[in-house]
């Protein structure tokens, strides 16, 4: 089976920062806003290089979203930066009315998504943001898998006209996709060929899915692994093509099973080709303090959990 090499763990938020730095040089319409988390979002370089295009808004996320919506009127492409929780739930109505319904070209860039921001605990660990954002008409939702892909996605969304939610995280995770990749919104990436089960994963659980595929291979199970970096619009064709071959699917995401990638995949399956599905996701719960690895183990979001879900789904075929 095809394998991938981790070139060294890196945090995806730094991929965002690097992408933003690049955009600063290449696209003069790109502006950035931050709600008192410049260091956490890795926006320091952009601020230093382009102070006139950087807006420190203070701890005032609602105002930040409105400012971003207003900045589009005059041709700017605003990138807002704060934690995922404060990027979505805290400002849902602002995004809904001033950005999504108004069709504004705002890029909502959210770090520290999910459990793996770690020790800060559940107040900061949003597991509902994908659901919140994908329900908004016209919103594109992207959850890249590693540093390189987050950088590529950051650059790509500047070229996409319309609101985007870009989700990434704090912990250092495997960096295994090509540094020079071109990011295509809405196009799933086929990583490993397999015949027994389809594993579709998003975010850093893609690496866990690759690890799981190796374990499954050792057990004589052939897993197909697909990286779904864009949850909306979802690549229906890639999913349906794969399950036509494998006949069952496991979805993996660092998100509540309610409202996440898994539910979007379920809808595609039930309306086209119903096959057994198992969810690797949190089970309608809040998180808690702990290290990223501890939390992924406790809440069943790692390679081991994907292997277990695969064995379950194979029994249902």
């Amino acid at each position, binding site marked *: 089976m095809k394998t991938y090499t981790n070139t060294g763990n890196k945090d995806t938020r730094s991929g965002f920062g690097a992408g933003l730095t690049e955009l600063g040089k290449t696209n003069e319409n790109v*502006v950035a806003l931050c709600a008192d988390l410049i260091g956490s979002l890795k926006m320091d370089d952009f601020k230093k290089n382009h102070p*006139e*295009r950087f*807006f420190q*808004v*203070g701890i*005032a996320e*609602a*105002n*930040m*979203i*409105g*400012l*971003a*919506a*207003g*900045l*589009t*009127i*005059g*041709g*700017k492409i*605003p990138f807002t930066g704060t934690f995922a929780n404060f990027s979505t739930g805290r400002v849902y*109505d*602002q995004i*809904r*009315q*001033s950005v999504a*319904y*108004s*069709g*504004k070209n705002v890029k909502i860039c959210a770090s520290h998504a999910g459990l793996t921001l770690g020790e800060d605990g559940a107040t900061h660990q949003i597991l509902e943001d994908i659901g919140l954002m994908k329900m908004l008409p016209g919103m594109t939702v992207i959850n890249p898998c590693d540093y390189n892909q987050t950088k590529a996605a950051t650059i790509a969304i500047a070229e996409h006209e319309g609101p985007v939610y870009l989700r990434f995280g704090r912990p250092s995770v495997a960096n295994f996709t090509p540094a020079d990749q071109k990011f295509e919104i809405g196009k799933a990436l086929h990583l490993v060929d397999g015949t027994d089960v389809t594993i579709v994963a998003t975010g850093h659980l893609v690496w866990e899915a690759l690890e799981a595929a190796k374990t499954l291979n050792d057990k004589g199970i052939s897993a197909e692994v697909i990286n779904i970096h864009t949850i909306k619009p979802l690549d229906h064709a890639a999913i349906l093509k794969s399950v036509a071959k494998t006949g069952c699917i496991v979805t993996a995401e660092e998100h509540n099973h309610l409202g996440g990638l898994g539910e979007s995949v379920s809808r595609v399956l039930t309306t086209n080709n119903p096959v057994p599905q198992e969810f690797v996701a949190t089970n309608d719960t809040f998180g808690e303090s702990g290290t990223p690895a501890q939390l992924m183990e406790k809440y069943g979001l790692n390679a081991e959990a994907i292997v277990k879900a695969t064995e379950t789904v194979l029994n249902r075929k």
Partner: protein
Amino acid sequence: MSNTQQLEDLTTQVRRDILRMVHKVNSGHPGGSLGCAEFFVALYQEIMDRKDGFDMDGIGEDLFFLSNGHISPVYYSVLARSGYFPVTELNTFRLINSRLQGHPTTHEDLPGIRIASGSLGQGMSVALGAAQAKKLNNDKHLIYSLHGDGELQEGQNWEAIMYAAGNNVDNIIATIDLNGQQIDGSTDTVLPLGSVKGKFEAFGWTVVEIEEGNNIDAILKGMAEAKSRTRQGKPVCVLLKTVMGNGVDFMMHTHAWHGKAPNDEQLAIGLKQNPETLGDY
């Protein structure tokens, strides 16, 4: 340049439009709309430097943002009568498949509208963003915005008000419609605003008061004063003291007509008090 009589004639016609629009669909918000009729007429006919036609970016012209979107009837009437879309389209207000939604939206591509509003408290931030874009584009034109006084109860306003002063956004004139009324009663009984002037000044804004907010000459004079205070390092706020329901005697000085349409008889009385000037749509 129009004379005062022409502006007053237009205002009377706008009042008729408002009454007829909300009456037809038995819904909408006539009170605040009537209270701001003079302001909208003065703004679109005299105060703003506007280009012909409409494009979303609005580079090279003054822009207006309505934050209290429920007073859409006055907004639509004045936009139509300022040439943004056919006056006959006012007939479609709040009807299925209309561009004239209950609250203003960009979603139906209605010329003149640059942001959706209706969920209150968001317009100040949007207007400030547009003001920052003007600065980045080296566009010397101004941003105008209108906000209800009850709307100031929404916390996002105060984030925006603090931001504007802290960042010297001095190319905006944000007007507060001080009519003292909101849906459930007077602002004093629902949640007292205290000194709005004192609050804006404490946050670092320049404040200009227009005591007679339903007098076109007073509006023109006050807004000219406000404009003269822009580009001096501070955002500018206009406190526009209006009478909700102005121009229709039984709708004045009460919150009762905030979100209620007149019946046939009440419409007839209202129209009689505002005789046709420029032709009904």
